[in-house]
């Protein structure tokens, strides 16, 4: 017990027919991010800095759904959101509706560190970014060909699509293996968020931190906010634990999933692993989601009720694992 621990994720809900090459690519990225985090931890960077660093890497790589490679809104644009939380004093920062900020998680950090607020969105957030001199790019930068293809499919199917459907095949092979369109808020659309990214870390001093970043739901209405920037839903960190969630945004919000892990540890005295299992099993109802978590004691855990979750974790004693299923 004790020592540092880190976990990263690239989203819950994976197409069972995902080509091997894509799986390998994902694992390579997760491994690379773990190594970045591990290096930082060995250099004694505090947890809050490590989660930001790792999520920046995930945002910059176009593979998962955050920063470059974000899912597209119904208008074909990108609107990104992120949040970050520092366990020790539960300081937090969040942003939504970003269209030109290269690294949303870093802007969330600036909201936390440089404003009297916790959450900035849309034009106000972009203006703040400009004033802070963070790196800005055109909205085009974030848009990938893959996702343009995905959006088209989503519109044809007139449903919300989950990521990693194979664009070229046009068969529903991947989709059929998953559930048929699920009811969400009473509407017959298939609900599956494309792959959000996140990182949770506990450093040598036992400080926990968490960060989550995403482009959101493919074909979402403009202005739609999901769970990733909502403290207590997609992201949470306190003295005991750091948590980052991914999956059906609306389900994660309803179940305040990230806070739930901490609450059962705090109020029911469950261990990290027990808490994660309990929350995934009993708190999601019909919802599909996954999460990664670390405890102040250097433990790391992940749980998901989806078919697969891109994830990786490592602890100071040398343990390291990257997985998809």
């Amino acid at each position, binding site marked *: 017990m004790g020592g540092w621990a880190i976990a990263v994720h690239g989203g819950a809900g994976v197409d069972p027919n995902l080509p091997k090459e894509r799986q390998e690519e994902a694992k390579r990225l997760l491994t690379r991010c773990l190594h970045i985090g591990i290096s930082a931890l060995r250099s004694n960077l505090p947890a809050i800095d490590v989660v930001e660093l790792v999520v920046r890497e995930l945002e910059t790589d176009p593979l998962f759904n955050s920063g470059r490679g974000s899912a597209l809104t119904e208008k074909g644009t990108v609107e990104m959101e992120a949040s970050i939380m520092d366990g020790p004093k539960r300081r937090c920062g969040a942003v939504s509706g970003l269209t030109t900020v290269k690294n949303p998680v870093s802007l969330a950090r600036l909201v936390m560190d440089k404003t009297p607020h*916790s*959450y900035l969105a849309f034009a*106000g957030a972009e203006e*703040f970014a400009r004033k802070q001199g963070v790196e800005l790019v055109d909205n085009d930068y974030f848009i990938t060909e893959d996702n343009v293809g995905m959006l088209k499919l989503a519109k044809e199917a007139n449903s919300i699509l989950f990521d990693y459907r194979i664009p070229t095949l046009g068969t529903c092979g991947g989709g059929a293996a998953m559930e048929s369109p699920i009811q*969400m808020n009473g509407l017959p659309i298939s609900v599956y968020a494309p792959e959000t990214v996140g990182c949770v870390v506990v450093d040598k001093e036992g400080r926990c931190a968490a960060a989550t970043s995403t482009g959101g739901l493919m074909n979402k209405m403009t202005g739609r906010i999901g769970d990733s920037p909502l403290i207590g839903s997609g992201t949470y960190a306190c003295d005991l634990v750091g948590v980052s969630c991914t999956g059906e945004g609306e389900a994660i919000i309803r179940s305040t999933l990230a806070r739930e892990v901490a609450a059962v540890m705090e109020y029911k005295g469950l261990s990290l692993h027990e808490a994660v299992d309990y929350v995934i099993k009993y708190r999601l109802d019909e919802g599909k989601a996954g999460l990664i978590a670390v405890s102040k004691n250097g433990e790391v855990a992940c749980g998901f009720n989806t078919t697969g979750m891109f994830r990786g974790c490592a602890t100071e004693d040398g343990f390291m694992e990257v997985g998809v299923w």
Partner: protein
Amino acid sequence: MGWAIAIHGGAGDIPLSLPPEKRLPREAGLRRCLDVGIAALKSRNHPLDVVELVVRELENHPNFNAGKGSVLTTTGTVEMEACIMDGKTMKCGAVSGVSTVVNAISLARLVMEKTPHIYLAFDGAEAFAREQGLETVEMSHFITPENIERLKQAQEADRVQIDYTQPIQKEAPKDAALADGDSQIGTVGCVAVDNEGNLATATSTGGLVNKMVGRIGDTPVIGAGTYANYLCAVSATGRGEAIIRGTVARDVAAVMEFKGISLKEAAAYVIDRVPQGTAGLIAVSSTGEIAMPFNTTGMFRACATEDGYSEIAIWDSPSK
């Protein structure tokens, strides 16, 4: 068991010396809105309809910080947010950055019922409102002279605070917005339970005086300012940033469930753990209990139960 309802018009540093011309209209507003809620419950309306109806009334009332009477952003504009949640189904809806919609709470309800999403904000929310044919007006409709004055004082205080190192609160006129942007009005909210244990909550606000454009507070963040499940319905008010960090509304229900304590005990427990002077909340439980704790100087509030009890208060009884 019977129905129960509680409403609030904001927690904050409400001075005990609040002059009658400021106090009476607010008390009258609380009375009227409470009566609207009571009538709706007596007519067997579902709590979800009741809380929306009551919050619409509170939004229309110019003396509370929601809808008309919303506080202003640092550029003098209005950016409203609202949230509604049904305890039984756990369905919810939220909006932020709304500047022309007369009743933001109704927009939040439409997001919940007419979209596959929970939360819409800014341009997207405004566009959706128009698609749905909701009543929209010029932003000036929401702006009151009181709030123009509040913003002016908040900005002056900020400016002075840069020049001097001591806190400005002591020198500020009692009625003014304080240097940190706080003022004696907060947010509005309503929680209700019917005699079948159906629970609902609704919260609406203009946010923080002099807030940065684009700032989102606790109100639309499920689990922070607003939350309902099978146990209770909660609406919080106060310093948004503290309520978010403290996941206040969610914690009341969590503490009830995990510690097995009553609503009153859970609500008091949660308010105690948020920094002094930052929060208050109203809550009802599935068994008709009511709690209205706050750790600020005061909280505009009112409640009523089917057995005929009713109360309107601003200060005192912090454990209620």
